[in-house]
């Protein structure tokens, strides 16, 4: 242990004592073998295990060199040229005879909705070549009056062509703004690199454009107004402004690793005044929040007075009328118990029962529906890891079947809830690592079906036939074997049937490695594909209308949702077509990712 001064950066001490941990790849590999939370790196780990003779992946070395060069190129592009330089600042990243595609292609407007315009490259991208200077200058042209230019690259595939040459599939994204008007470009570039005289600094020889979008808008669609809604400065500063990393080590026996977050939120009209309110789960030791909305859009926090200032680590929360008395009751997942708090119609709650699981795995997402159509709401409750986070290891990691059971709790009125998981057939394929579930009558037969997103493997689509469930994930094409974290239904294409979005981890590292020919070459093609799917990102299942689905995620362009947690369909722009939002990010700390 080390003692540091309080006024130094809070992390400074940690940096000193665990300098060894900074050899991150090694440290993470060790962690990944032990812990279920290690999604992104597990593909890498598997890769290294699959070929114990190899001490490194040649393509990963090429990747790191190319990434470094692109980072420097991005910096050069972000700096406004002074105009009097003899050589262009970007030419040093290209071979002298490099000819690249026009990176700003001919583009057509594909969406123009109230001063928000999206353009896309016209279908046939003519490989019309030009000099890097000219091409990049044209690409950067829209940003010339802009400020805050931000350019980022992501390499999702590396292929070796010959001793001298390799290619990378590279995602490009640039953003800037003039006054309040944002400009954004996204593209996919196929870059050919030459190792040249200095293999650590390969040079770009050729770029082909495989996809391009740009967005220009008169203003941002969304503006943050948090401080105008939550006006209690003291509450905000002391309890909400800082996140898990702050509270870690600052409460008595956290025990639940609650700094990892995963606390839920629920919107509902708690006091019956016609305005939606917000209930917020918080980590251990910090009370949950009940924000009652005032007529002017601000909130007042009443959790303590309303009897719902729970201090235990809180996962899923739901505001639903359990007893059909016209007010919103609260269901709250506290560890392996769901506490049912009854609303007295004014927004004051009394805990009436706790629905306690037989084993100690915590509940995660909750989803309510009337599965048996008897006029009251039943609860499906997901469970993820068997004991404390990090203590149960999913086996095998890409198709884990050793998780805790989920439960369907039937509402029996004043008698409470009955666990009917077995009786209705939901015990089938019920030992996954489930994070989220969503009800929807996808087959339009009048009763709600349920999709369950599971981490480390296959998902479930339980079709409800008059109260009996059958897992039809495989036959419907929605098994989606990956790191499932969230699920939402919508008829996003307005063809009349319900489609499905499943948020999965996107890992460029995983993709780079899992698609190498040598990756798990001793294994079957089938297993390779299963593992490859793990890093692909979000799935979008378009319904064929006959109970089957096709994953159109790649074609639809929604794969890259990063470390996708809870995806939601939401019509941002009132055009009737649902858009998608994906909150993400896992663990931001003082030091950057090294991977």
């Amino acid at each position, binding site marked *: 242990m080390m003692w540091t001064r309080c006024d130094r950066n809070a992390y400074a001490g940690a940096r000193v004592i665990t300098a060894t941990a900074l050899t991150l790849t090694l440290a993470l590999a060790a962690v990944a073998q032990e812990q279920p939370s290690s999604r992104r790196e597990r593909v890498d780990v598997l890769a290294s295990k699959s070929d114990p003779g190899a001490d490194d992946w040649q393509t990963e070395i090429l990747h790191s060199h190319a990434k470094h060069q692109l980072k420097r190129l991005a910096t050069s592009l972000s700096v406004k040229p002074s105009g009097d330089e003899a050589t262009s600042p970007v030419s040093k990243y290209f071979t002298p005879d490099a000819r690249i595609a026009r990176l700003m292609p001919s583009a057509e407007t594909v969406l123009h909705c109230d001063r928000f315009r999206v353009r896309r490259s016209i279908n046939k991208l003519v490989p019309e070549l030009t000099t890097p200077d000219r091409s990049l200058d044209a690409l950067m042209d829209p940003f010339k009056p802009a400020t805050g230019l931000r350019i980022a690259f992501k390499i999702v595939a590396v292929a070796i062509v010959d001793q001298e040459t390799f290619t990378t599939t590279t995602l490009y994204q640039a953003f800037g703004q003039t006054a309040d008007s944002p400009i954004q470009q996204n593209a996919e570039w196929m870059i050919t690199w030459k190792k040249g005289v200095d293999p650590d600094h390969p040079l770009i020889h050729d770029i082909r454009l495989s996809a391009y979008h740009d967005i220009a808008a008169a203003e941002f669609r969304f503006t943050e107004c948090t401080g105008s809604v939550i006006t209690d400065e003291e509450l905000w500063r002391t309890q909400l402004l800082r996140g898990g990393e702050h509270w870690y080590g600052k409460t008595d026996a956290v025990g639940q690793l609650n700094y990892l977050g995963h606390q839920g939120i629920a919107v509902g009209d708690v006091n019956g005044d016609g305005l939606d309110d917000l209930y917020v789960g918080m980590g251990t*030791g910090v009370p949950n929040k009940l924000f009652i909305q005032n007529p002017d859009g601000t909130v007042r926090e009443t*959790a303590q007075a309303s009897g719902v*200032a729970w201090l235990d680590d809180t996962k899923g929360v739901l505001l639903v009328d359990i007893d059909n008395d016209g007010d919103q009751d609260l269901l709250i997942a506290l560890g392996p118990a769901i506490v049912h708090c009854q609303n007295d119609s004014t927004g004051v709650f009394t805990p009436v029962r706790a629905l306690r699981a037989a084993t100690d795995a915590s509940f995660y997402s909750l989803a309510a529906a009337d599965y048996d159509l008897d006029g009251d709401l039943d609860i499906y409750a997901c469970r993820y890891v068997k004991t404390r986070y990090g203590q149960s290891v999913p086996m095998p990691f890409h198709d884990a079947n050793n998780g805790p059971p989920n439960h369907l709790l039937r509402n029996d009125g004043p008698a409470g809830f009955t666990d009917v998981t077995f009786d209705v057939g939901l015990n089938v394929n019920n030992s996954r690592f489930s994070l989220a579930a969503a009800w929807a009558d996808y087959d339009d037969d009048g009763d709600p079906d349920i999709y369950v997103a599971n981490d480390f493997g296959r998902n479930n689509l339980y079709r409800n036939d008059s109260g009996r469930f059958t897992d039809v994930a495989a036959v419907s094409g929605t098994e989606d074997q990956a790191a499932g974290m969230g699920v939402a239904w919508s008829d996003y294409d307005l063809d009349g049937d319900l489609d499905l979005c499943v948020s999965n981890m996107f890992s460029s590292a995983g993709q780079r490695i899992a698609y190498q020919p040598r990756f798990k070459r001793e294994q079957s093609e089938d297993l390779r594909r299963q593992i490859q799917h793990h890093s692909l990102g979000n799935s979008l299942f378009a319904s064929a209308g006959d109970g089957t689905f096709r994953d159109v995620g790649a074609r639809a362009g929604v794969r890259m949702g*990063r470390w996708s947690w809870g995806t939601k369909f939401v*019509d941002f722009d009132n055009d009737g077509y649902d858009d998608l939002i994906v909150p993400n990010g896992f663990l931001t700390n003082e030091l950057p990712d090294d991977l």
Partner: protein
Amino acid sequence: MTQLMNSGASWSGRERHCGFVNLHDGTFADASAALGIDFHDDGTAVATVAWDHAGDLDLWFKNRSGPQLRFMRNNGAAGQHHVAFKLEGTTCNRDAVGATVELHAGGKRHRRTVTAGDGYLSQSSKWLHFGLGQADRVDRLVVHWPASKSQTLGAVSVDRGYHIKQGGARTAQPARAVTLAPAPTEIPDATAVARVVLRAPLPLPPTITNVAAAARGANPPAPARAKVISLWAQWCAPCVTELIDFATHHGELRSAGLEVIALSIDKPEDHEKALRLFGSKIEPRLAEPGLSVTVADDPTRAAIEAILKHVLDKPGDISLPTNLLIDPSGQLQVIYLGPVTADRLRADAAEYCHQRARGSIRGSFTGRWYYGMRRDFKTLARDLLDRKLPEDARFYALIHRQQSQRR
């Protein structure tokens, strides 16, 4: 994970939220930055709601990182129409979860179903919000109630919200004007400062309780007094500033029944220096005893580290100054990481160190616990044994045994 957290490293950190705009042809464009939602928070849940009734869907984000909440106001799309419905069941469940509104407008058929929980750990508003694009009227409106007859409703005007009761009429939502000004959150620098009120008082082992006896300038033994052990080092300027503050107010601390022991955790070779510094900077300000000083030997340091690790559940560094508020019976009540004022110590002594008040609030914030508190004294005892403190280990092993017997 703990190892990772302690290393200060990130893992898929600083990833920006993504937003994909539907291009009406089955494809989407990543517009995360242009939408204004691409914060690099560690975000888990997002809920949608027309919070300000401005005719568009706003967003509440719940993050792991700070700020833990963000409200994103939708700035609206001029010229686009919408209509919204809140359903109430009579024969079906009252929230009408599972009811679907089917709506025909502008030659398109839209459907939305009332849900309770989707995405991840999230529940959005039960209002069904329909964007209508340029369509300024609804041609057909049908509500499919669960296990019940569908209900066709007459023409509705757009750009309004309606309450629909199963089998009954619709009533328009009252108009409302809300102005919410932009208020971006500024993320503060990290801080190590915190006041940690223990959920349950923790008896302290002999190595720590004996510290006071050895202190220079202490009062004669006064078992009925509460104590503050103030951990400091001669190289730590904020510690010296804090001790000067304690010295300045030590009369008030004394009358509040508090005795302060400045415990230098300097390396043995710096002990002399620490005592000299205390003698020159602190002691001259003392009119009477009550603020004493001593130095921590290795066992004392080790015992304190074990206790802090046990309570805070975090291995790794401890920032200075750190103060321990100990009640007259020798139980740890509050840990202060970083500086604390004399006023705060007095207030907390009154709250936690007097028999009549003890236990009114347990934990740093007011609220209710579902699960009771059970300390793992066995692990603590083992840790102390590993640190070669057999006396202290025995102290907790005994408590552990009593605890097990009680169960």
